[in-house]
């Protein structure tokens, strides 16, 4: 089976551990996002896969073949760099044709492939320009074209959208996702932006401080994070966390926070009474209303003090009883001065973590 297998990779620079025993299997024809904050080790992982960096320990297998000691040119892996890495002394055409020339294709074959990919990416009219004459978005497309023009087994993308403005980023996400699917390619994409993973990825690998925290289908990682750490770092805007205490009353079990109380009797076998838990609620699982909502949901009063409109969506910052709460609304909502409203959520979306070891219990 064609796949990229990363086995027990470790890497340190001087005294700093950058990657610590990372193992994952990236399936063929899939879109995988390596998610982590700046300095988490994701770029190093890509560079090791590409072969421009040697791991201290561990092996890399591509289609079952050990490629750990192969030089980059013999790996058939393409990479798109964050800073584009276009050759400044070559035209766009020569930049894109470069990997084809290395493969000794004939002039007409090269011509055909370059024209086809530049057509796909809408950069046909830029072919005779030099990189310094391109805008950020155009340079990005050229960099992607140079990678996609080859038939690589794996395409590595190192934060290719980070340097672009919001609008282009949105459009490119859609395009990359479609390209991966339509052309049946294998993408490994490093990003510090949870939205990249949420909007494009089939699978996501969450990395922090060089350790692989969780790897799985994007929706699984998002809706069912393994522990508090994954829940906190993977999500945009960040998840709301509440301290809570499990209490037994009249034979029913409740989780009590400073803001609300939830009946969790049906999870009785997973929770212990008189123990502290952390409750996580994703900002987009919260909604607002003028009054208290119906029985199915949990409501509590908050004071909105800031709203931040992004595109057609709104991130609301609220506080209540000394706690900060982030609410994500899928529509535009503006306030001119602090506003008292109720926020509510469906208890089905509740995430409960053990406060002692951080692991998810519900």
């Amino acid at each position, binding site marked *: 089976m064609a796949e990229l297998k990363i086995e027990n990779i470790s890497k340190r620079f001087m005294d700093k551990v950058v990657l610590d025993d990372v193992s994952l299997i990236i399936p063929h024809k899939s879109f995988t996002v390596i998610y982590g904050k700046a300095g988490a080790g994701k770029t190093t992982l890509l560079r090791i896969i590409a*072969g421009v960096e040697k791991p201290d320990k561990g092996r890399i297998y591509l289609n079952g073949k050990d490629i750990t000691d192969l030089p*980059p*040119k013999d*790996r058939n892996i393409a*990479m798109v*760099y964050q800073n584009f*890495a276009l*050759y400044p002394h070559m035209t766009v055409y020569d930049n894109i044709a470069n990997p084809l020339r*290395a493969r000794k294709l004939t002039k007409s074959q090269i011509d055909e492939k370059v024209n086809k990919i530049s057509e796909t990416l809408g950069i046909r009219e830029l072919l005779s320009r030099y990189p310094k004459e391109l805008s950020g978005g155009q340079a990005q497309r050229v960099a992607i074209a140079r990678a996609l023009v080859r038939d690589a087994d794996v395409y590595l993308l190192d934060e290719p959208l980070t340097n672009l403005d919001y609008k282009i980023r949105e459009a490119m996400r859609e395009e990359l996702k479609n390209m991966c699917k339509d052309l049946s390619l294998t993408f490994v994409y490093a990003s510090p932006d949870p939205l990249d993973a949420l909007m494009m990825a089939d699978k996501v690998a969450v990395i922090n401080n060089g350790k692989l925290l969780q790897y799985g289908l994007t929706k699984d990682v998002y809706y069912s994070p393994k522990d508090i750490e994954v829940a906190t770092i993977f999500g945009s805007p960040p998840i709301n966390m509440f301290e809570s205490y499990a209490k037994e009353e009249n034979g029913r079990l409740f989780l009590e926070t400073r803001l609300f109380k939830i009946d969790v009797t049906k999870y009785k076998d997973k929770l212990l009474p008189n123990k502290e838990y952390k409750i996580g609620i994703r900002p987009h699982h919260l909604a607002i209303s003028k009054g208290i909502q119906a029985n199915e949901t949990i409501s509590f009063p908050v004071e909105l003090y800031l709203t931040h409109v992004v595109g057609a969506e709104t991130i609301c910052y609220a506080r209540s009883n000394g706690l900060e709460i982030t609410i994500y609304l899928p529509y535009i909502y503006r306030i001119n001065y602090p506003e008292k409203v109720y926020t509510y959520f469906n208890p089905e979306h509740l995430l409960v973590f053990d406060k002692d070891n951080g692991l998810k219990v519900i």
Partner: protein
Amino acid sequence: MNKSKFSYSNLIYVILLILVLVWTLLPVYWTITAAFKSRLEVIAWPPTFFPQKPTLNWFVSVWTDRPNINYYINSIVASIGSTIIALALGIPSAYGCARYTFRGRQDVLFTILTFRFLPPATVIVPLYLIGRMFHLIDTTLYLAILYGAINVPIVTWVLLSYFKEIPVELEESYQLDGYTLFGAFRKVTLPLARPGIVAVSMLIMAFSFGDFLIASILTTSPAAKTLPVGISEYMGGEWGYMWNQMAALTIYGLIPLLIIFFLVRKNLVRGLTFGAVK
């Protein structure tokens, strides 16, 4: 705006500029006019500002009265040879220090630089002895090797900043495209560092072409002597100081440098100011 705006600071600036120009260009002017003057006029007192009876005699006679053509060729060979040697040694050392971190890298760079602080005169005797050991005394090859070696620090330090400025991602990307590291170096790094390479080449050529001290001690025959040595041979002797021939030969010596400087002047300006801003 007042077109003829006058300010004292401007005036001082202009006066200083004129002084600097006179200071720099007067010897050049003297040399050029001396080449056209007669043997008597050149030593006349008070000196004449323009040649009274301009003559081209000296431009012809320097090719016939002594083996200056050999000296000329030797100078060109030594400067080109030394440039090749200095680049061949300096480029790898600059590249290595720019791209790889290793224990003692700063010490290596500093040591390389200290060689440049060393006045050549202090090592001329050992260099003579070493040259004799390898039967290299009185050869153009030995001059090229020495000029090259002396200039390795300059090449290393100028190109170090160039190579550091070229993102390593470009080389990596080139390798991922399907080439070797050396291919990436040749097709990406070297072309991008070209202004720097051109600039240091010029410095080395100017140094090698103008050196007198080393050549005067390590060469003895027309087969190896260089132009500056040839010029010095018009000093003293039975005819005394032959200023006219010296001036004419100097002008011939300036020509190749001027041609090359003119050809690469764009690279040169960029090369020498690179990294100064930003």
